[in-house]
């Protein structure tokens, strides 16, 4: 009968470390200071494994594996620069960008990920999301056209705040996020904690005060509170 060792040894990009069973590749990589880009991951939430931007090569595995949800095995050897993993992950980023009406703002996580993969434009120009009005809230706004349906805001509302005010709606290209039953933050169960804006990697949900820094607002966006 085999016994489970109390620690696993793993090697990532040539660095080796000891880790507790259950540690994910991503967690181990951060300890060993190996860079793995992520998009749907937030350390305050359970790993979600939806975006495939964190794909890495694992010796012996049939294909790339998502680092955020894959637990280490003893003796695992991981290559974060493995060409297939990088190519697939880069294509994911390119597809995500193809849906947006404009490139992501420089400070956003999505922009950082795009820089990491050297993606500046998409080979697949196609349908893009249209802006639509969002009911007024004194602090928060939701620009639906920038939503990439990563689900981080919904999970922040559920797993960090526990208010369950945000909803994922639609399928495929129509997938998006709404507050409550698409009634806006203020009329929904939202408690205005801002955890969604804090985690959003594209600025789709953001603070009005930050939008005002970037210049004049598009016409449909609400005026900030002047009180």
């Amino acid at each position: 009968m085999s016994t489970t060792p109390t620690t696993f040894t793993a090697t990532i990009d040539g660095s080796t470390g000891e880790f507790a069973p259950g540690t994910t590749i991503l967690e181990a990589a951060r300890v060993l200071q190996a860079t793995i880009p992520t998009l749907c991951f937030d350390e305050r939430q359970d790993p979600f494994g939806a975006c495939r931007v964190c794909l890495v090569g694992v010796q012996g595995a049939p294909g790339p594996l998502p680092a955020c949800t894959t637990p280490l095995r003893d003796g695992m050897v991981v290559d974060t620069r493995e060409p297939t993993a990088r190519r697939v992950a880069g294509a994911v980023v390119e597809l995500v960008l193809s849906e947006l009406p404009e490139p992501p703002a420089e400070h956003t996580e999505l922009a950082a990920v795009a820089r990491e993969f050297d993606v500046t434009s998409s080979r697949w120009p196609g349908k893009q999301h249209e802006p639509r009005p969002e009911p007024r809230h004194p602090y928060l706004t939701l620009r639906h056209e920038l939503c990439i349906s990563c689900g981080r805001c919904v999970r922040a509302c559920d797993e960090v705040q526990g208010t369950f005010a945000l909803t994922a709606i639609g399928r495929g290209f129509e997938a998006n996020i709404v507050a409550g039953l698409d009634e806006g933050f203020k009329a929904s169960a939202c408690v205005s904690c801002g955890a969604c804006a804090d985690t959003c990697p594209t600025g789709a949900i953001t603070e009005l005060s930050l939008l005002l820094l970037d210049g004049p607002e598009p016409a449909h966006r609400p005026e900030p509170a002047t009180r």
Partner: protein
Amino acid sequence: MPDDRFESNATTTCGYCGVGCRLETHARDGRIVSISPALDGPANLGHTCLKGRFAHQFTRNRERLTTPLIRGEDGELHPATWDEALERIATELTRVKTQYGPDAIAGLASSRATNEDCFVMARLIRAAIGTNNLDNCSRVCHSPTSFAMRKAFGLSGATGSFADVDHADAAIIIGANPTAGHPVAGARIKQAAIRGMRLVTIDPRRIELADYGVLHLSPRPGTNAAVVLGLAHVIARDGLVDQDFVDARTDGFDALLDLIADYTPQDVERISGVPAADLEEAARIYGEAEAGCLIWGLGVTEHKYGSEVVQLLCNLAMMTGNIGRPGAALLPLRGQNNVQGSSDMGALPDTHSDYRPVDHEPTARAFEAAWGVPLSRAKGLTIPQMFDAAIGGELRAMYIFGEDPAQTDPNTTHVVHALESLDFLVCQDIFETETTKYAHVVLPAASFLEKTGTFTNAERRIQLVRPAIDPPGEARTDFAILSAVSAALGHEMPYASPEDVMAEIAALTPNFAGVTYERLGRRGLQWPVTADGIDAPILYADTFTTANGLGHFAALPYQPPGSEASDEFPLILVTGRRLEHYNAGTMTRRTANLELLPSDVLELHPDDAERLWVTDGDLVSVRSAFGRIELHAEVTRKIEPGHVFTAFHFPEVRTNLLIGSSADVNTSCPEYKVMAVDVRPVSEVPARVPALVAGD
């Protein structure tokens, strides 16, 4: 890559509630643009609420005090220079002191200000003026908790940390509404309940967390003692006592056993209205837990016997051994950002820092040696005693900083009469308040986003406060102002910065011995901190801090509250908080939070509403033996029949006109939570702001 949208960033500690969220502030053009939670904040774990994150616009509100104000011959406040204001204060306080003695002067320190500010205030009052007439607003919130925990265990503070909620398999929340009053702690408790922690909520209102718990008890306001004694009865009856712990670590259990024999579930049901079966289930949930937490707020303390109920809660923890281990903590939810610290610092009439009595000779000598002046050994006045003394003529001058008793203290009519009776009143604040209306000099202070220092949160965690922006106009930090006032009174303090003050606090305060700003770093330290910098997330693992090292049971019977329903006043008013606003609302009412909650309502059960011919949204009058207010009704099943609820955030409502002078028997913490009232619909258009009548 650095975010070039911002010109400066600072990591600080939130100045709203006692959770102590660590915040990242982002500023541009001298204004705060955005605030986000620090991912490594031990209390908030990368989360914060709408107050900490968004309610910062008050810092640049046009009503900010930006220059000292002096009341002129015309009775109005006029802008003045700092030199004029300081000279006026020195002249008046010296005159009062010469004519009536130092005990004719009193000071209120602020639980919103830093530890350093409160320590400097204590030195100003004790050394520069020479009296122990010094108090802070924990008097009106958690002074019963401090009193009771010191009696039972030794130290005045939570026995563990918020992290214990993550490790508990059961918890009882009594007299607190954390998702509104302490939103980030509330979210953490809610997540624990969703993961399977068995949560019992005990409150006259059906609080939000009741929907995530396994059981909710709604006792009649003022009957907490009976409920907690009943829980102890069932725990003992059903063999859930941790006898090894009781034998080895405590004393006084037999007296408690004798007492609780009289509190059968049926007796408790008769007193409190809580069904006997529910009480039994609640006792088993807590008594059978491997690790259970007790969490409470002002719904426990702000009662005539509030301090006794806290002692009874300490009983529950000791008889089940739920103390001194991970997941087994007693967590009083401290209301304000530094209500723990202001008391730790000795901004109290009877204690120096570390709660050492003012007549404790070695302590008094140590402070005399450090400050170079003789100190009084006589206890000073508590806040309610100060107001009584002002009306009686023994108290002639007050120095109030960062507090608005004319809005927040009970029996507003009495408070205003007291303030009007003073010869001289100094207020130090960031805005004009209800209290500054009676001030002779008003000094413009800096907000928590504009200063350096430390706050101590509800888990005894001392955390750094760093300025995000500069104070507006000529406003100065409380530290700078209090130092200048002390110098003007002839007592120079030797501190160049708040960090110097902390060095002296550490030198004079055993529980702070190893505290330095460097060691506090990003995560803070939970006192007691040893000289080599080791802190204490969990207290009492091996021994209690009492004289004999044992935890003390308290056998205290249930006694009825100070106010009971009668034919004239048939409903019981409970007061509390709303998520969107904070205490007196001085800050949150000057942000867009006002758009989220523009006014207050009186919560009323549908049965009462029907009987009183009130429909949702109607204007109603609420009358008690002490006063009358008007506001709109919200008909809701959140509140039980026979009870009504409102908050105290809006000065135009003047909720505290209704509250009388009944107070905790040990600490004089007011009984805000039980007031018999009469509610009636108002048919005509009212005068929205009730007039204040001078005199009692």
